[in-house]
Structures are given as structure tokens and as C-alpha cells.
């Protein structure tokens, strides 16, 4: 957590006192910066919201939900699952529905083994969506748990 102005001023005074005649604007700035970022990191650690507070909001699961909609055409499922595999994602559940020539599919992917940040996978899926003329959404599971589970 970021420190108050008051606290930073105190730290600065302390640094100047300790350095005595060796104090220059540059070394004071450097030392204060280090001290502030160390204290802020410690504060952030302490402030981390405990499990109890967030468990009702979806807990720590790490599954990704990919939903695909559009006019059915060959190769959509292949393109999406290839993309997931390229990112080392493991598909743990699939369901799909076909109504006339409209197609909807939901993939659940275990996100723990992903080789790149989730945002990268989202970006790649968006590109596939545009290429295939489909709507593809990829969301973290927490949003569904938060909304649909008490």
C-alpha cells in the first residue's frame, strides 16, 4: 500500500540525518525511493485480502471459459482448440449446441498450465474470431462463480 506524504517526509528526514554531510540530492532521492518501495511492498503484502473475504466471490480456481457463437462452418472447433493447445491449455469440458445453422460452444480450459499470460490467449482467440467471423469470448471462471453461486 502506498505511504502517506507525512510518512515519506519522515523517511526523508531520517535519511538526511543518517547521511549527515554525505547527503546529496541524488543519494537522498535514491535511498528514499528504495525505502518507500520496500515499505509499500510490505504493506501490500499485509493488506492482501484474506481468503475468507473473497472465497464467496469465486475462490482461487483457475479455469477459463471460452464461448463461441456464430454461423456454423467447418474448422471453427479445430482452430480454437489448436490455439488453446498452442498455449498449453488443457480443455477439461466442452459442450456445444447447433440450432439450424447457428453454432454455440463452450469450452472450459484449465488455465494452470498456460504457457503465456491469459491476456495473450485472449488476444489470439480474438484474432481467430475475426478470421472465422465468429464471436469468441474468453473469461476467467471467477466471474461465473461470483454471479451464479451463493
Amino acid at each position, binding site marked *: 500500500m502506498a505511504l502517506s506524504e507525512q510518512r515519506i517526509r519522515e523517511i526523508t528526514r531520517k535519511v538526511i540525518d543518517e547521511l549527515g554531510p554525505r547527503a546529496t540530492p541524488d543519494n537522498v532521492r535514491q535511498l528514499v525511493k528504495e525505502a518507500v518501495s520496500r515499505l509499500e511492498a510490505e504493506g501490500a503484502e499485509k493488506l492482501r485480502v484474506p481468503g475468507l473475504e473473497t472465497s464467496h*466471490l469465486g475462490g482461487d480456481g483457475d479455469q477459463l471459459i471460452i464461448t463461441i457463437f456464430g454461423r456454423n462452418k467447418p474448422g471453427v472447433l479445430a482452430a480454437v482448440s489448436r490455439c488453446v493447445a498452442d498455449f498449453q491449455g488443457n480443455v477439461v469440458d466442452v459442450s456445444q449446441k447447433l440450432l439450424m445453422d447457428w453454432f454455440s460452444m463452450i469450452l472450459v480450459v484449465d488455465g494452470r498450465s498456460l504457457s503465456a499470460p491469459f491476456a495473450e490467449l485472449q488476444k489470439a482467440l480474438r484474432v481467430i474470431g475475426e478470421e472465422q467471423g465468429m464471436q469468441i469470448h474468453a473469461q*476467467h471462471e471467477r466471474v461465473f462463480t*461470483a454471479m451464479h453461486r451463493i
Partner: protein
Amino acid sequence: MHWSQEEILQTLQMTEHEHFDIRTVTMGISLRDCASDSIEGFKRRVYDKITRFAGGHVAAAEKVEEQYGIRIANKRISVTPVAIPGDAFSAEQFVEIAQVLDRAAEECGVDYIGGFSALVAKGMTPGDQALILSIPEALASTKHVCSSIDIGSTRAGINMDAVRLMGEVILETARRTAEDRCLGCAKLVVFCNAVEDNPFIAGAFHGVTEGNVTLNVGVSGPGVVLQAVKEAGPQATFGEVSTAIKRMAFKITRAGEMMGRQVAESQGVPFGVVDISLAPTPAPGDSVGEILECLGLERVGAHGTTAALALLNDSVKKGGLMASAYVGGMSGAFIPVSEDEKMIQAVAEGHLSIEKLESMTCVCSVGLDMIAVPGDTPATTLSGILADEAALGMVNNKTTALRVIPAIGMKVGDTLDYGGLLGAAPVMPLRTLDSSIFVRRGGRIPAPTGGVRN
């Protein structure tokens, strides 16, 4: 699969078609430790503190937005009512402070910063008065700054000196920004019983009882609630409709809290509250008025409108309260005229008068909001409207507010068109009777018996 296909599709339906979004994540920053006896020192501390804490706010929110696929429409900042740390300064100096807030907002990439405020329910310090007098120039010379003044409370009564002053300030603000559609008045709210953790602009400020920094989230979703009411059908009883609204409010509050906590945690800032408020936008299908009509009223303004709004407001609150331990802010339904397609229509067709709106504010979460009135309205009449609205809040122990725009050079029948989020406000007729002797009496309306509860 943990979730049924219907549940997953419902969430997507809400975000993709029914305008469900997190309306705002607002970082509240205390400026109390920025107080200084020199104006330059104060301005520097304010700018440094805001940019240091909120510099990464927009990026953090965008990251969470992407991860969960739910839009966070606005990223904003609120600060301690500036009159408190700046109590020693003059009106001219407060204008400079507003400009510094504007620059800090620009630097952080947020569209609005709230907290150019004073809390004067019982009395005004010289600093409070200076800030109030600086408002027209401050709002005319800045783009991102929003101002709010608390002029009454159930505990203190109504500060009628401040009410008189605010009538003049509203009118002057309209005049000073007349060339820009009197836009200054859209950034100025006057409250009774203001809340300290409201994340919604223009009335957001970081209350004096808050900590150093906090992050509050405002969740909206008139579209999803409308859908829930539609699905309940015209034959549903009031109990069934209320349950349908509560269920939906529960879901969106949960999603909002989850995302708000993520934004807060990623910046190392404590999470404050979720404000679950149905805040309409002019987009089709994002209207509170449409929910009221869907409940069975031909138009907003029909007899029964107040009851329908009471049902809606209460159900939203209950669903939200069940979903989160930390519900705060306004939490309910907003009825800004210019920002709601169906409210605009009702006013334009003559179904909605200022008196009906006043009665609606007794049961909704805020007050008379984004209402355009003729530009030649006397300041004392504006003060009269404000006193009436404050009285409703004071006696009923609720927040009420006034955001009124005297449309300079316009008369009843004209429309003040902002476009975008602020929408379009048809100029509404007011009583032309004189309230000036009442308004100028001076002093304070005593607190009601309801305010003496110890």
C-alpha cells in the same frame, strides 16, 4: 462443468446485449496530509499525491476488465472535500487548486475527479465559503473537476445561508459556461445527507472518516434488471417481480465486488464498498424509466410511478445487501432526466413535472438530477427548489440532491442537448411564484425530531 450452459450464456447475454457493466471504479484519496500554509506547497502536494496513488489506476482497471470480459465504463478519482485541507485559502486560490486537480486527473487519464467540495450542513468556515464562491470560475476553467456541496442533514438541519448562496452559484456557473451548454452545472451537485463513500460522479468525494486511500466500485445495470422484469412477465405479482429484481441485483453486485476487489488488490489499496445503483445512460435499453414502464405504466409520470420506483429501489438494495458485506454509497436507482431515454420522452411529452420528480426522489436513491430549467429562473427560485429537496432528505433521513441546469437563453420547449453520456434535457417549466423572502431569511432550519435519536 461447474456452471450450466444457461448460466454461462446468461452472463454473456448481460454483458453483450443488456449493457451490464461496472459503471465506475473510483479511487478515493485523502488530501488531509497535503495541508500547507503556502498555496504553492499545497498545490504541489495535492498533485504529487494524486498522481502517485492513481497514476496506475486506469491501467489496473483495464487489465481486470480484459481478464473477466466485463467492461469497466469509467475509472475515476475522488478526494477529500477540498475545503477541509484548503481551509486557509481564498476564492482565487481555490480556482488554482481546481486547476491542479484538473491537471492531476489529466495526468492519471481519468475523465472526472470529484471532491471540489465543502460540507456545510451546519455552518460555513471562511474556507468553505471561499470554495463555494470559487465554483463558477473553477468549473468554467477546468474540464475534469466535479464539485459537490452538502448543505443539510437529518442531524444538523438545513443551512439556509448555504442554500441561498448555492442558488446564486448554480446560476452564475450556468452563465459562466453558457457557451458550452451550461456544462458547469452538470458537474455541480448539492446534497442533503451526502454520503462519504459514493463512487459516482459528479457527487463523489472521499469522506473525512475514510482512510488514506480506498477503492469503491459502482455497479450499474438498468438493462439487466429490465430483462429480469420482462421475463417475470406482466402477470407476475409484486412479490415475484421484487424477487426477480433482487436475484439480478445480487448477481451484478457479486460480479462488481469481485472485479472491484481485483482492481484494488492489484494496486495495493484497501477495498471500500460496492455501490449498487441503477444508473441509466441515454443508450436504448439502458433506462430506469423503461423498467418503470415495463412494470405496467403507460409512461413514466403516470399515477403509480412513485410506487413502482419505490419497489424497484428497495428490491435493488435488498439484492445488493445479500450479495456483499460492504454495500455503501447511494445504492438504489438514479433518475437523471437527461441521461435516461424514457425520462426524456416523458418530460418532452409533458407527462413528468418537477413536482412528480420531487415525489419520486423521496423513494429513489438520490434526487432531482440533470434537470434543465429556463435560463431566466431567479437564483432565489433555484434556492427554493434546493430547500424543498433538502427538506425531503432531512425529514426522511435519506440522501437527496439537486443537479439542476438553468439553460441560459433557453425557454420551456427547448432542449439542452449534450450528446454522449449526459444526454439531452428538455427545459422544464417551474412555478413562477416568488420565494425570495423565504430564501433570504437566513440562518438554519432546525433539525427535525427524527434527527435527535440518542
